[in-house]
């Protein structure tokens, strides 16, 4: 057991090193992400000029939602894991994992955790720097249940994020080019995951449907708990249950795709 854990600890450390090489890139990306917050600030403050409450929330609550969403993206979001997995399959680099006692999912997950540790810490820099400017627009509710349900929800969101990226990467066993699928899914995620606007602003019937889709649990769900857009603890618990089901389903799908994909794999290159 310890030897197994040690394998992935080393993988994590190697992932940490390789991600630290690109720390400038991540820092620049984090810096430019704050430009997105400026867009959000300008657009939504102009929208709120005509109406003090939108969907029952004031400007500060909506702005806090977008800030929390941005931080969550850097802490748990899958950046280009799907593309990396696809490259490893297409280039034959996965062949080495077929000959060694290394679980490919655990290997990739260790690297994902290392990468998010680096990006998660780097996003704190522009956040702290901009705090004097945006601090007055940040309002976070402080009920203890939000932490109790929000943290496991954030963990499950990370599993779903990585799981979906892993499944898309697996598609490379069948398709030469997966980027089209990935970006189509990103567009779906951006709408149904609440990245473009808070999901609760959608028409009621669409919001209800979205609660049964995995995209809702990728980012919106934990962020809504932490930022006070979801205020009913029992509804949050039900959501956590649905989220756990999606996490298990996506992990299961990833395992099936891996097994089926390997049957087609001809181990060229490497």
């Amino acid at each position, binding site marked *: 057991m310890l030897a197994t854990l040690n394998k992935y600890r080393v993988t994590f450390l190697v992932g940490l090193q390789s991600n630290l090489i690109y720390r400038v890139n991540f820092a620049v990306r984090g810096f430019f992400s704050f*430009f997105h917050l400026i867009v959000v600030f300008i657009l939504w403050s102009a929208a709120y000029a005509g109406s003090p409450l939108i969907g029952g929330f004031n400007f500060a609550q909506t702005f806090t939602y977008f800030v929390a969403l941005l931080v969550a993206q850097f802490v748990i979001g899958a*950046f280009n894991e799907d593309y990396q997995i696809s490259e490893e399959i297409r280039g034959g680099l996965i062949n080495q994992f077929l000959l060694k006692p290394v679980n490919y999912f655990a290997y990739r997950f260790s690297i994902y955790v290392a990468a998010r540790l680096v990006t998660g810490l780097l996003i704190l820099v522009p956040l702290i720097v901009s705090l004097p400017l945006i601090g007055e627009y940040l309002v976070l509710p402080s009920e203890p249940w939000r932490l109790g349900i929000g943290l496991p929800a954030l963990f499950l969101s990370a599993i779903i994020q990585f799981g979906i990226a892993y499944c898309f990467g697996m598609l490379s066993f069948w398709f030469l080019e997966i980027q089209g699928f990935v970006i189509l899914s990103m567009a779906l995620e951006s709408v149904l995951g609440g990245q473009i606007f808070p999901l609760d602003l959608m028409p009621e019937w669409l919001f209800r449907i979205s609660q049964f889709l995995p995209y809702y649990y990728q980012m919106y769900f934990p962020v809504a708990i932490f930022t006070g857009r979801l205020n009913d603890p029992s509804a949050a618990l039900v959501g956590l249950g649905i989220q756990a089901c999606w996490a298990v389903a996506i992990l299961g799908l990833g395992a099936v795709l891996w097994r089926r994909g390997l049957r087609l794999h001809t181990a060229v290159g490497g």
Partner: protein
Amino acid sequence: MSHYARLWLTSARYCIMRMMMFRGDFFVWALVELFWMTVNLLMVSVIYQHTDTVAGWTKYEMMLLVGTSLLIQRFLMGFFWSSIFEMGRNIRSGHFDFFVAQPGNVMFTATTRKIDPDSLINSLVALGVVIYSARQLGLQPGWVEVLGYALMVACGVIIHYSMLVLCIAPAFWITSVQGIEGSYFTLSEFSRLPRAAFVGLAKVAFVWVLPVVVVSNTPASTLLHGFDLQLAGWLVAITALWFGLAVFVFHRGLKRYSSASS
């Protein structure tokens, strides 16, 4: 000049032949672009469900603005994105040697080699959004306004092209621009906002210093309020300025290029 036109046409023909070979890919990417455009329009729709105006712009005025911004971006994606995106990776891998060894202008061959027919097809959808919004607003622009609009969209494409080159050119200095190239998209988000929404420092930065707001607002205003010669002249001037800056930075970077690997 005709030599470069022939070069471009040959590349374009090759890209279209390639598209015919991978028809499935073409449909998937066309769908992707269409979906992203829908996302932008959906955002406008959701916001206007809860408010009547944003910075004094009504729903269809905003749709006209977003449609114009999408039109400029589709042209950029269609004519330049793939080539410029690959340029960053080619500089890192050393494949950029291919372009350096070509007879002719390196910046031209490196940034115009590929076209994306899927984006160009979707520019028709963006144009459809502009026309639909104009009809909903009861606009009846004359030839001067339509030609002025086309000229300003062309200026917008050149400004976006220059900004994209400036986002990728750091690859000559820092080797990998992975993650940085996305910063262009962050900047392009500003072009979907009405100019009136910018105040104070944001107005100085995004309206005057970085022309991301004016590139879409100026053509949209031409359709909404008529052709303004002074505004058009100013847009042409900053287009020349940004293009000049992109050419300068690219060639400074090119001097640093030393290939890679063996």
